[in-house]
């Protein structure tokens, strides 16, 4: 049940209505029932995985609080990581091994079992592991109630694609009393609408051009390939941040505050900053539970760089079991290492051309670099294979700049490009405003007629110009597959 489906539009109001009409004591139970129903809709065969995760997490957390020690935590983490490896990475790992053996002249082709990859497994496993580490570190108490622990791991807005919840922040919210509140309703509704705008007007529209060009980059001119790569940078931002907006908005209606997952990442002035503003719940997870335990930046510069590369390699693999994801992760790690190594010469160069670090020109230049570098990395993310990504990059550098087919050959006619352009300008304007103030709050504090105009206008624009319905290929959320 995706957020933008008729079933969700029926499910969500029923869930919210039940939540606020039921007595306080039964609300968490209702929410858990709704969350499990939501998960069952993703595929009943996956449900046992979720149930087992809840059972293991609850038991281990209690065990850790009763002095279970580091060994218990390590066992539990090994169990989760082991399960993730088996279900998500076994095929990839074996392909690497057979490839390596083949290079040595040894022929070994093991039978790889067809295993289910439960929906959202990477997200709720990470939630569970983070929670257990927090309990072990004493950052949050072990949840005694099985129901609340189950709800924490299964909370439907964030269950399938995050934001990855943290025990100290989310668990406590299930203890609080959430009364119906119009401000929350309006805020949640507006966030959901904005998410729908990004998904339907930009992500799914640009997906057509991106898929067309990435499928056969050799058929297009260099500028068209470059345009498609840039379009993918916008598409993935809009796709994933839209999901987060809708998740945050849905939770907000019921009075819950989920972690903000994006803070206008393309306005970052360095790749390091970009990763502090992109998929924040995952980046901070890696920072707290992998980078810092590895030593972070405390063990010297060389070790810091190695830690960065390890974290980003793991992050790449978290996104998908393929070499291209590993390259994408490593590339992002290398950008940061290179950024750190070249910091001084860049600063000297800026001084030489009399550019102040806080000037607008510097900021724009740096943002353009961040966008360019991340776009090159995203090519590996989207292409599906390293060779496919290299083909795309090669075609960006060929002498033929523009294929005769023009924009239409990319799968979108001129009118579609105009709509995408206008939507992009609107997105950039809103993102720019959100640098200075909370746009949602500002809209909600405006006079009623302004609020109504914004909401109804947004609704109308989505309904008319959105990529949905018959004649369109419904695009799944990209992060739904992780």
């Amino acid at each position, binding site marked *: 049940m995706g957020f933008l489906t*008729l079933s969700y539009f029926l499910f969500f109001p029923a869930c919210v209505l039940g939540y606020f009409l039921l007595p306080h004591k039964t609300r968490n139970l209702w929410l858990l029932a709704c969350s499990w129903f939501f998960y069952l809709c993703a595929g009943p065969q996956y449900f046992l995985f979720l149930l087992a995760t809840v059972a293991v997490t609850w038991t281990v957390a209690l065990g850790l609080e009763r002095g279970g020690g580091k060994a218990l935590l390590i066992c539990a983490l090994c169990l989760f990581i082991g399960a993730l490896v088996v279900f998500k990475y076994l095929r990839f790992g074996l392909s690497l091994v057979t490839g390596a053996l083949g290079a040595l002249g040894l022929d070994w082709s093991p039978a790889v079992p067809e295993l289910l990859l439960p929906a959202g497994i990477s997200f709720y496993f990470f939630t569970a592991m983070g929670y257990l580490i927090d309990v072990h570190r004493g950052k949050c108490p072990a949840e005694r109630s099985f129901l609340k622990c189950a709800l924490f791991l299964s909370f439907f807005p964030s269950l399938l694609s995050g934001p990855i919840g943290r025990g100290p922040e989310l668990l406590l919210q299930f203890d609080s009393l959430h009364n119906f509140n*119009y401000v929350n*309703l309006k805020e949640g509704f507006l966030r959901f609408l904005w998410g729908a705008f990004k998904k339907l007007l930009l992500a799914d529209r640009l997906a057509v051009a991106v898929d067309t060009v990435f499928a056969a980059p050799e058929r297009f001119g260099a500028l068209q390939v470059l345009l498609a790569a840039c379009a993918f940078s916008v598409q993935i931002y809009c796709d994933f941040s839209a999901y987060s907006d809708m998740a945050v908005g849905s939770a907000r209606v019921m009075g819950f505050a989920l972690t903000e997952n994006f803070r206008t990442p393309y306005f970052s002035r360095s790749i390091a900053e970009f990763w502090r503003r992109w998929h924040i719940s995952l980046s901070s997870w890696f920072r707290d539970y992998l980078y810092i335990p590895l030593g972070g930046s405390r063990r010297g510069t060389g070790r810091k760089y190695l830690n960065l590369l390890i974290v980003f390699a793991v992050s790449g693999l978290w996104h998908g079991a393929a070499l291209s994801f590993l390259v994408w992760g490593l590339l992002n790690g290398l950008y940061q290492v290179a950024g750190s190594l070249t910091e001084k010469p860049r600063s000297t160069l800026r001084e030489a051309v009399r550019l102040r670090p806080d000037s607008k020109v510097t900021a724009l230049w740096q943002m353009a670099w961040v966008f360019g570098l991340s776009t090159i990395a995203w090519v590996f993310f989207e292409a599906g294979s390293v060779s496919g990504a290299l083909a795309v990059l090669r075609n960006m550098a060929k002498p033929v700049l523009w294929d005769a087919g023009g924009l239409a050959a990319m799968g979108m*006619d001129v*009118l579609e490009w105009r709509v995408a352009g206008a939507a992009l300008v609107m997105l950039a304007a809103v993102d720019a405003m959100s640098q200075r103030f909370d746009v949602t709050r500002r809209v909600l504090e405006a006079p*009623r007629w302004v609020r*109504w105009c914004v*909401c*109804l206008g947004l*609704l*109308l624009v989505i*309904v*008319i*110009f*959105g990529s*949905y*319905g*018959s*004649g*369109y290929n419904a695009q799944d959320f990209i992060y739904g597959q992780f």
Partner: protein
Amino acid sequence: MSEKNTEKSGRKTGRREALWGLMFVLAAAILLHLTGRVFRPVHINYGSTWEQYLAEPKNSIDVLFLGSSYAYCDWNPAMMYAESGLTGYVMGGSEQTPALTYWYLKEALRTQSPSVVVMEASSLFFDRYRNYTQTNVERMPWGFNRLGAIFTAAEPEKRVSLFFDLYIYHDRWKELTEADFEKLVPAGADHLKGHTAVDEVFPALEWSQEPFLNELSQSEEILEENMKDFDRIAALCREKGIDLIVTVNPTYSQYPQPVYDRLEERLTENEGVRVFDWRNGFEEMGLDVSKHLYDGGHLNQDGAKIFSAWTGRFLREQGYVPRAQTEENTLAWEAAAEYWEGLLG
């Protein structure tokens, strides 16, 4: 005391907010409805002309024609009026199944009380679902009958677009013209009265040629489902005190004789239903197969003129008499008849 006051004012604010919330939902619904009207393609013929039907003066229709394209191509109510004084309306739809016809009849009877319902029989041989469910249902006015049509007569996978037709029409933003915005003003009654005039002539048909015989491919279960829907139509007519006539219109697209024998036998199991098989009645009606067939099956506009006049005479012979009309409506019908006389000669 002050706590009580705070509670009271809190409740008041809550109620006010709820009211504004409802108004917002209403405004959004109206906005989406109007947008839907603009984006839905222009539709003035080929059946399902609900807006024009609802603009007819209440209880002014003597004869209600039901069925599929055979109904709206073959009957031109204005020509029937010119001949017999009987007013009529074709409330059919393209490839309309009997299941849908039932909901059409139910909805149509909310504003009209015809003396007789005349249903063309072809749809009784249709599959459960046909090609034009979207057009047939989306034009119906919102209400219980439309919901009934959506849930009992439409393909389940079409429900989203039947509830929210922008789902399929929203991408018409590229082709909108001024005419699309004119649809914001509801259509009034027109001269078509549900008829669709087609002017092509089916080539090379001679009097001597035998009709085309089709194989009946539908399963017994499907045919029986259709009959059950017909039973509901018959029951509704009985309940409302309206006569029900089923016709097989003049056509060169036919089934073998036993199919019609069985059909008549099954239909007349319903009390009061009369069946008239006119499929070979060309000569008697004054129809020329070399001039008056559109595609071998349906009549063209000239054939419809002759057949409608004949139907009017037939119904008068059956004892149906025109009801009293207001002067304004009489003038409207006369204008419609004049329009068609002028057009068809």
